[in-house]
């Protein structure tokens, strides 16, 4: 768990006896609370890792952002395993040099979405969807099955397609994870603004990110209050009504906040300009980083042409 590295273990332990006694009909509240609190724990984790003294933390966010986007694009354009896997190996090396836990990276990037894709893609392994050479026969051609007159087997093309998708998504997610753990949100938005992204877009992104935590906290408190006060059984209708009404209440709160925040912004002399205390400047290390990665990409390109 990412929280385990930062928060004492006794604080993360559940009161198992109590949790098990939670009525099944309140599961949705427990899940909401878990999801909402995860936002905070991830924010703490990403901020801590972005503050570490590592290679990628020292690189200008613009260079990192451009490079990672190029890497993701190349992974998504390639049709062989070599390039995505080499780029994943490079991701692992950068993660190690940036003091990012490789176990965490692998777990977060590969064990959720790519595994889900893999499970959903299982039928595509078979010749029914993607024909090819036989790798593993499940039902032989001699069988009298009405449905599988050509037999049922795992085809080489099917396996290639499924694995390609699994690897593409895992490698892309690893790169996104690497960017998140080595760049603070403020640096990322600052980098985007220096890359001439529209000011309005950057301002919206930064403000949304800031107020997500405030509204998440409101939602968390509402859910916790309901969870703690509910005794006995409630039907789904009542529970859904609670969720619908909580959403409405959040809308009312966010509307009120928008007016208050705007008044506060005007009082402080807001002029639609992005002001940051940190100045970003492309340094020698950034140029070396970009040139080296450019060479790596050229080598990969040449390699893919030869092979």
């Amino acid at each position, binding site marked *: 768990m990412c929280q385990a590295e930062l928060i004492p273990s006794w604080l993360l332990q559940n009161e198992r006896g109590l949790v098990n006694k939670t009525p099944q009909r309140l599961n949705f509240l427990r899940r909401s609370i878990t999801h909402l609190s995860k936002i905070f724990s991830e924010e703490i984790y990403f901020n801590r890792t972005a503050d570490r003294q590592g290679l990628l933390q020292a690189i200008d966010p613009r260079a990192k952002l451009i490079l990672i986007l190029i890497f993701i694009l190349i992974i998504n354009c390639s049709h062989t395993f070599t390039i995505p896997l080499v780029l994943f190996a490079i991701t692992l090396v950068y993660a190690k040099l940036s003091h990012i836990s490789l176990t965490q990276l692998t777990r977060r990037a590969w064990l959720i979405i790519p595994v889900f894709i893999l499970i959903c893609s299982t039928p595509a392994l078979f010749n029914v969807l993607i*024909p090819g050479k036989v790798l593993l026969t499940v039902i032989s051609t001699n069988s009298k099955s009405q449905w599988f007159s050509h037999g049922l087997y795992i085809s080489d093309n099917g396996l290639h397609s499924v694995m390609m998708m699994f690897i593409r998504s895992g490698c892309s997610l690893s790169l996104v994870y690497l960017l998140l753990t080595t760049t603070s949100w403020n640096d990322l938005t600052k980098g985007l603004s220096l890359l001439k992204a529209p000011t309005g877009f950057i301002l919206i992104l930064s403000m949304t990110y800031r107020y997500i935590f405030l509204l998440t906290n409101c939602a968390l408190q509402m859910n916790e209050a309901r969870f703690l006060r509910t005794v006995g059984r409630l039907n789904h209708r009542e529970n859904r009504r609670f969720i*619908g009404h909580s959403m409405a209440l959040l809308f009312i709160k966010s509307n009120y906040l928008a007016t208050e925040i705007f008044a506060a912004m005007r009082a402080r002399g807001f002029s639609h300009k992005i002001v940051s205390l940190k100045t970003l400047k492309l340094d020698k290390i950034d140029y070396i980083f970009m040139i080296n990665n450019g060479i790596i990409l050229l080598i990969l390109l040449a390699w893919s042409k030869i092979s």
Partner: protein
Amino acid sequence: MHIPDGYLSPQTTIPALIVMSTIWYLAFRKVKLAHNQQSIPTIALCAAFSFVIMMFNIPVAGGSSAHAVGAVLVAILVGPALAILAISTTLIIQALIFGDGGVLTIGVNCFNMAFLMPVCGYAIYRLISGASTLGSRRNLVATFIASYAGINLAALATAIEMGIQPLLFTSPNGTPLYGFYPLGVTIPAMMFVHLLFAGILEGLISTLALSYVVKFAPHLLNQTNRTLGSKIIAGSWLSRNKTLIITTTLIICMTPLGLLAGGSAYGEWGLDEVKQLIGYIPSGMAKTADLWHAILPDYTLPVLGDSAISQSFGYILSALIGVSLIAGLIIITHRLTKNSYSKN
């Protein structure tokens, strides 16, 4: 419904990003007109609101729970232009911070959930709700149907985007390069869950939330109606063009009638038919016949097979694409030339 990286080809995701950039620009201009300087905090808070409502778990049968998207609800509460920007911001933050949905697929995901869902849902809401009072039975039924239709349209768009991958991107030996499930698999798989469960849940939650806002903070909705010109314009546009929309929809639905007639229309013969009629293929015709390959040959989708229902579906889809393209071109021409002829 968040499509991750790796499932769609960059040839699909990058054009979607370009389309969405135009939509974002137009939506931002509209919101800025309505909210002026307050536009930035309004969009940001709305985005934070949509982010948080996507985190809520809604109880369903047994002990399980599901998520709502809430895009149509946001559109009804704050207007479609603001909803496009708010939900897009939410999806961008989800992809960049929480790894939910891909980075390259941001454009596609935004198109489905931040454009198609709120805009179509809102149009349906206005069409059904009409001039009814906020919170009235008709108004709440309109909210339910709009949310139900909105999420299903988004799911259908997702299924089509995934299902066209094996049609468009294959290796020389026919192996799919990206998504491998054809439309015949993706559409039923996505629509089954959304038509039967997710749509109903989305509709229920949106109706409950709207009824609460109407009861306890109606001034917010009224203010939204007053300040967001886009909502009123959308409503009046629909009512103004009601006859045109109904007629066009009827004509589109009637296109499969052509299947009843046998053979080709006079003068629209293919190479085989010309050869049959006159005994040879004129050399000029043979040379130019292969210059262009239609995206939907013979108004059909090859993956759906040759059954009458799939052919009818292909006809309706082709008519819909044709009408949208023509209408889009006319609107663009009108927009571009509006200033010059209004001056004269």
